[in-house]
């Protein structure tokens, strides 16, 4: 039988050791990522000089779109403005550095999601008063630490390079009489304006971090004093966070991603981005637990807990597919040009460079996890879980790539060393920060009131 039967929670602590060897490897990985990024930037600066024709074509289409808009042909303006991906605005030349900023933004949004889902997962477990997850709750609990890295990056990129990412920040789009004046964007300027955007980012970001710090502090205090009083307080923090997160995740989805394609909107977008964040976060939690187990930690996490994590990944992969498809189906069926442009851009637009990613998006995020995790045995077997984690994590990187890139760089996008280097650098930074945070507390929340229940978890 499982070896945990004689496990006595009250006097067992397990500390993760972040070896200097491991630190070195991650730092080397980070440096390799940066080197790849620099080479990629160099190649990009060379390569763009040969891409004038495409850029010029996009430029003309953009001009046409804006002229049509100015003439008051709204539908036509939607169409051609969208097809030219709103970038570059009329009268501006496409700058090859845009792809670098698009990549910073993409990774910052992606990793913000993963980090905050750690907090969401723990809050949800407290809200539901779930027992089984108490054995592994220290893993997701460490994730929000990385928000200290990603939120300032988001803020800085928005502040200095916001006009590269967002159409609505282009000069003069809301000024009547300006040659860039855009009636539709001017109508949205009550919400989409610089001060309000920054206020939302800082305000909600600060609340996330404050609530996480409170939760973390109380959770570590519980290790020392025990009892059930702290548990009740943690439930309250969890409830508060869920309420805040319900609002802020939707608003950040509109702010950070949907407003890139400023003319376009979808009422399902908040859910869509949340589901993408959530399933990626679950996959990262599962992968972290599996890797810790491979290193000999967390022997008390047995296949029953892994089964639950597998069910979570399976269910939320399907949830993501459901939301993605619902968004697509409504637009496909209603067939309004100003809505279908979003999918046309990703399917047929920009010389079809985004079509492969769009197909991979469905395969990696729906079909593969669905088939791999379907059986009970797969959800209890580490190698199958790892395969599913690989598909889900890389698939949702592609998903965010598809959300952000076509709108920001349009026909200049692609998968190159810039993308690879940036993702590697962000991943290594994430692994480093999370590993460091994991060392700061016992891996098992030894005085969690539900720990005995979790240790006897049997499904």
């Amino acid at each position, binding site marked *: 039988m499982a070896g945990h039967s004689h496990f006595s929670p009250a006097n067992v602590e397990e500390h993760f050791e972040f070896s200097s060897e491991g630190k070195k490897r991650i730092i080397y990985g980070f440096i390799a990522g940066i080197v790849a990024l620099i080479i990629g930037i160099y190649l990009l600066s060379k390569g763009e000089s040969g891409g004038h024709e495409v850029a010029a074509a996009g430029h003309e289409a953009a001009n046409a779109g804006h002229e049509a808009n100015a003439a008051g042909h709204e539908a036509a303006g939607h169409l051609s403005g969208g097809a030219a991906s709103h970038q570059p605005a009329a009268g501006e030349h496409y700058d090859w550095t845009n792809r670098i900023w698009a990549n910073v933004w993409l990774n910052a949004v992606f990793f913000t999601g993963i980090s905050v889902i750690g907090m969401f997962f723990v809050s949800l477990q407290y809200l539901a008063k779930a027992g089984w997850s108490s054995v592994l709750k220290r893993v997701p609990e460490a994730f929000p630490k990385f928000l200290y890295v990603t939120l300032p990056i988001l803020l800085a990129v928005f502040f200095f390079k916001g006009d590269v990412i967002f159409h609505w920040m282009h000069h003069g789009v809301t000024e009547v009489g300006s040659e860039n004046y855009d009636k539709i964007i001017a109508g949205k300027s009550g919400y989409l304006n610089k001060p309000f955007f920054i206020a939302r980012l800082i305000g909600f970001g600060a609340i996330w971090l404050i609530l996480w710090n409170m939760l973390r502090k109380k959770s570590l205090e519980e290790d020392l004093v025990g009892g059930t009083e702290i548990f009740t307080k943690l439930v309250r923090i969890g409830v508060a966070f869920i309420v805040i997160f319900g609002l802020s995740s939707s608003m950040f989805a509109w702010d950070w991603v949907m407003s890139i394609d400023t003319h376009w909107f979808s009422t399902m977008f908040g859910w869509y981005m949340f589901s993408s964040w959530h399933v990626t976060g679950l996959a990262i939690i599962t992968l972290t637990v599996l890797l810790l187990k491979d290193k000999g930690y967390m022997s008390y996490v047995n296949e029953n807990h892994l089964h639950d994590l597998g069910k979570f990944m399976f269910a939320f992969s399907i949830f993501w597919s459901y939301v993605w498809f619902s968004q697509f189906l409504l637009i496909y069926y209603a067939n309004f040009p100003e809505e279908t442009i979003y999918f046309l851009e990703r399917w047929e637009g920009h010389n079809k460079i985004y079509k492969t990613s769009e197909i991979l998006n469905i395969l990696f995020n729906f079909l593969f996890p669905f088939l791999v995790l379907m059986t*009970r045995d797969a959800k209890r077997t580490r190698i199958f879980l790892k395969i599913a984690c690989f598909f889900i994590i890389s698939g949702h990187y592609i998903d965010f790539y598809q959300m952000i890139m076509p709108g920001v760089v349009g026909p200049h996008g692609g998968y190159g060393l810039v993308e690879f280097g940036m993702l590697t650098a962000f991943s290594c930074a994430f692994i480093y920060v999370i590993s460091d945070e994991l060392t700061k507390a016992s891996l098992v929340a030894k005085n969690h009131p539900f720990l005995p229940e979790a240790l006897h978890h049997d499904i």
Partner: protein
Amino acid sequence: MKTMSSTNNYILGVYDDEDEVLHAVSEVKSKGIKIEEVYTPFPIHGLDTALGHPRTRLPIAAFMFGCLGLVCAQALINYTMVFDWPMIIGGKDFFALPDWIPITFEGTVLFTAFGLVTTFCISNDLYPGKKPEILDIRITDDRFVMAINVDKNKKSAADIKKALKDSGAVEVNVK
């Protein structure tokens, strides 16, 4: 256990505690006695494993019924919308796959649900109007009953009765 009308083939050990019956299962089994089934008022964690029952094959049936539902739904829509009476709806192709996904999904779920319930009833010999065969009425209340088929065991009835008593049974009956 298809029929259990009083044949005097069954020895029933009656227990009054769930932990006791769980321990009794491994104790009785270790004496080389084959247990036919244990009846309890509520599910007990680990009982299936202790009894060594093979895993249910219902999930495989579920998958098969799902595939059947998917194929049937697709066949129906294709026949009606593409071959028999081609129709253009909303300016789409005759073969407008995205429009059909919800129906395909519903067909899959419907076939799985009905298929599973039917399979479950057939494999458990359940049908409308079936008379319940209950070994001991108290298994619906607060007693746990371990049933052993004497014909399928090499041990004598007396040995089995003794093993049940030793393992903590509060009563041993023959039915």
